[in-house]
């Protein structure tokens, strides 16, 4: 303005070429992305009314008229979650140990890491499609889906913890003449146990949330009931189911928070 210099904060990306190149790239991408976006405005306007009806449904959720289906779905989801988490966590222990480079020989390490990568890459619902085809409709297929996903999640985190353990303790126990199994139990396990239990409880939360969707492809749980209620435009029932899911997740998160705090 009148010749005085004003202070300006330093830009996030120092190199001007990179900065402007990045801005240009983002702008170009946005133009292309929006150009390929087809929006049916008439349908959208119609949808807003329906959206209003749906929002209104949350004010008077209908728990009663489909009470039997809802309670069956919720019980299926909960039992599925418990069994899947326990099975997944139990199986994740050997896989996790196998995937820790400091404890497992190379071929086992490679096998376990591949298993983990496969389990983590595919979304649960895709695994559910395949398992429903194999085991038939129902919560058993869903349980195996969740257990498979749990293995990948828990084994990866367990392997990382195992690779970070304090070697001095292992050496001390080995010096007392302990065998391989005794080293695992007395030197390794105490170092990773607290976090492992905490993560298992966290995974229980995730599994419940996932159990609410894999029902869409026939793998049991509340998802099927939810899907039906959407198809029938029974928004009051939908609202009731969603409120139940939110309530259970909140309760589980609160409970697991307390347990994890006590473990530390």
């Amino acid at each position, binding site marked *: 303005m009148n010749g005085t210099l004003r202070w300006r904060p330093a830009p996030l990306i120092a190199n001007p070429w990179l900065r402007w190149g990045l801005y240009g790239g983002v702008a170009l991408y946005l133009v292309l992305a929006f150009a390929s976006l087809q929006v049916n405005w008439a349908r959208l306007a119609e949808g807003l009314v329906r959206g209003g009806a749906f929002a209104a449904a949350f004010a008077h959720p209908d728990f009663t008229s489909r009470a039997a289906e809802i309670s069956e779905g919720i019980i299926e989801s909960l039992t599925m979650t418990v069994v899947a988490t326990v099975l997944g966590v139990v199986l994740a222990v050997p896989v996790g140990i196998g995937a820790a480079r400091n404890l497992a020989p190379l071929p086992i390490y490679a096998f376990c890491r591949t298993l983990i990568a496969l389990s983590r890459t*595919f979304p649960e619902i895709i695994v559910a499609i395949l398992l429903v085809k194999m085991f038939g409709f129902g919560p058993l297929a869903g349980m195996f889906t969740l257990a498979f996903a749990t293995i990948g999640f828990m084994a990866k985190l367990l392997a990382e913890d195992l690779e970070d353990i304090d070697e001095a303790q292992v050496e001390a126990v080995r010096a007392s003449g302990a065998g391989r199994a005794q080293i695992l139990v007395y030197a390794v396990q105490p170092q990773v146990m607290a976090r492992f239990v905490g993560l298992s409880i966290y995974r229980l939360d995730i599994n419940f*949330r996932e159990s609410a969707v894999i029902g*869409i492809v026939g793998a049991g749980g509340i998802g099927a009931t939810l899907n039906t209620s959407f198809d029938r435009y029974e928004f009051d029932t939908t609202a009731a189911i969603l409120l139940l899911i939110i309530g259970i997740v909140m309760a589980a998160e609160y409970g697991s928070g307390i347990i994890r705090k006590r473990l530390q």
Partner: protein
Amino acid sequence: MPITSISDGRMGWQRRTGRARLVNWFGWLVGVLFVVQCWDIMNAETIWDFVWDAPEQAGDLLGRMWPPRWSVLDRLWAPLWDTINMATLGTMLGIMLGAPVAFLAARTTTPSMAVARPIALLIIVSSRSINALIWAMLLVTILGPGVLAGIIAIALRSIGFIGKLLYEALEETDAAQIEAITATGATRGQRLIFGFLPQIMPVFAGISVYRWDINIRESTVLGLVGAGGIGLQLNASVSRLAWPEVTVMFAAILVTVIVSEFVSAKVRAAIT
């Protein structure tokens, strides 16, 4: 708890006292019974004949899935572009909506502890407890099938994730820097821009990229409920039992997810 106890006349070391061992054993018993009970309830309606022939079914399925019909790939480029757009635009929208929520939720920046903070926390919890697929079902019902429903579904799911991690970062900011900015006579807005923003920027960028990579993974399946992208093609092929096409789509999803994870890991490593 190193406890010495007597076993067959000699002293021996044991991890727990007799009483603690009993409690421990009882806890395991209750736990196991509970899980068995859950298993029973869960399998009340399971048809075991279908379960026992699972290995056969798996073999049959693999036989049908192989060899993959690669020619279907030509039809997949447009849905893949849609999938990536859903994830990217959805993440952007999620950031735009989630960042203000985080500022309302953090103890350090919230305008009111009594009103704004509980509401913001409620928004975060609701968004986090409901899977993107459920959001998509809801939006497909409301807005009709299409990419737009997918974008909004991804955005709604991302609000909670971004909001939660960001507000935790905001609560861990260094108070001394904020105080220094305040001491220069900065207004509320200036305090946010020059005090808080620079401190959380790296975390913020990291969270956004991380969420983008999760969103790519989730948007590949949103089409199963009608929200566009490659999932729509997958659903069509699965319901037509065109398993050789399904194999190609699985491969496409696998590659997309792995590439996005790689990009996200590289970017995050460069930022932090």
